[in-house]
């Protein structure tokens, strides 16, 4: 899921002041931002209270079912048309993808209420760790299901680097070295110590990404007109 954190409150207020907004509609998200405790019902109520206390009128709020889903968000916006019409601005407590669908669905100034951080694993409730870069060139088959691109601070495919000490990471000294973990798991599974991984293909991670399975484009990036069909 996409991990988010609340955006600095002063920046939110600055954004609203930049257009002279006095009334605000709030949009949350029922998916990642709800699980991350940043954009669910509870956080929307809190934010509405904070805005009211700061002198703003909150015309309404809704937790979008899947706010990054464009058509779903358009539907949500229609359901709350009057409250949105009455607002000078919309504040979105969702990831950057949700902010953008909201901005596409609503013809009002839309501002981000969260900062989007990473694609995360929920280690336990309220504890999130980054495990995947969405690089489009997965090496997990060779690294015992542990991503060195993401979990090694240097993103080395072959390691450890010279900073490893007693199995621990040089940069994040309270963590085990990713490469020690990989080699241990490979050994435990009788898979040897693994070979040398070749330099990574970074062209698969070029932005902006795009996939269209409706037109039988199995995987391509936006702008790649010769994408594999």
């Amino acid at each position, binding site marked *: 899921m996409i991990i988010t954190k609340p955006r600095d409150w002063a920046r939110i207020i600055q954004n609203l002041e930049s257009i002279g907004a006095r009334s605000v509609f709030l949009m949350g998200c029922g998916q990642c931002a709800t699980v991350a405790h940043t954009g669910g019902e509870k956080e929307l109520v809190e934010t509405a209270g904070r805005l009211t206390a700061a002198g703003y009128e909150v015309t309404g709020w809704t937790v979008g079912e899947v706010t990054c889903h464009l058509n779903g968000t358009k539907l949500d916006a229609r359901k709350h048309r009057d409250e949105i019409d009455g607002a000078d601005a919309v504040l979105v407590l969702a990831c950057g993808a949700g902010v953008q669908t909201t901005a596409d669905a609503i013809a009002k100034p839309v501002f981000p209420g969260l900062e989007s951080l990473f694609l995360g694993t929920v280690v336990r409730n309220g504890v999130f760790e980054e495990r995947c870069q969405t690089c489009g060139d997965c090496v997990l088959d060779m690294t015992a299901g542990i991503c060195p691109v993401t979990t090694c601070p240097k993103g080395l495919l*072959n*390691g450890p*680097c010279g900073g490893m*000490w*007693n*199995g621990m990471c*040089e940069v994040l000294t309270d963590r085990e070295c990713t490469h020690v973990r990989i080699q241990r798991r490979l050994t435990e599974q009788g898979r040897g110590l693994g070979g040398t991984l070749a330099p990574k293909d970074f062209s698969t991670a070029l932005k902006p990404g795009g996939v269209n399975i409706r037109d039988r484009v199995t995987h391509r990036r936006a702008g790649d007109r010769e994408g594999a069909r």
Partner: protein
Amino acid sequence: MSRLKELFDTGEFVVTGEVAPPRGTDLSGMHASVDLLAPYCHALNVTDNQGASLHLSSLAASRAILDRGIEPIFQQTCRDRNRLALQSDLLAAWSLGLENVLVVTGDDPRAGDHPHAKGVFDLDSTQLATIARGMNQGHDMMGRDLKGATDFYIGAAMFPEAEPWDVQLARIEQKIEAGVRFFQTQAIFDMDKLQRAVDAVRPLGAKVIAGVLVIRSPRVVKFVNEHLAGLMVPDHIAERISAADDPAEEAIALATEQVRDIRSIADGVHVMPLGLDAAVGKILTG
């Protein structure tokens, strides 16, 4: 042909030193270091933005040292350049007469004086060694022919004291397979662990230059333990330095003992004087 390689091939015990290029354009300090070290060293390792902090490039400094009459070991880290820049600099290095290259990962930018920098790490040190070997064979990493090949003597770093050893050993084998022919070790304090590493590397046809660090004061012990990656000064050595009436003299005596021990174990020694450049002669001849 690399003089370093020739010396190893003839069975000479190789002595290397280390110089850091300046943060600025005034080379006089570096040259003073070179002049102190040159009478005792076969080659000098020239660091590449060491400690992830800004210095004049290893490429330019290596050439300056060559012009001063001593063979440089051009160090290349993977931290600051992508694969195009690294290959381009390898070609530049060869064209400037630099025949030894030491490929290392590089410290994380967060450890240096530009902590907001993006760490590139497009390649790792093993991949870079493979590419350097390919350039020796006349092609770039995409397999395209070069108009004029290189003939680098390729080195890499090794960490005999960092456990787990089985992981380190796998890395060493990987690097040798990639084309590495000599290793420069992190500072050695435990000669048994150095022996273990040399025993593993020799049958695979690579040479080992063992690192010696001159720890001139308790403050330096603290610096090493807190700021130098992959290195911890053992307690008994830290105590020896802090208990001495003259810690600098004690550090020189310790380094001298270490060099003597290393002569019977490894293929060479790499002295990192950490400011005590003037003592290097004594350490190597004592």
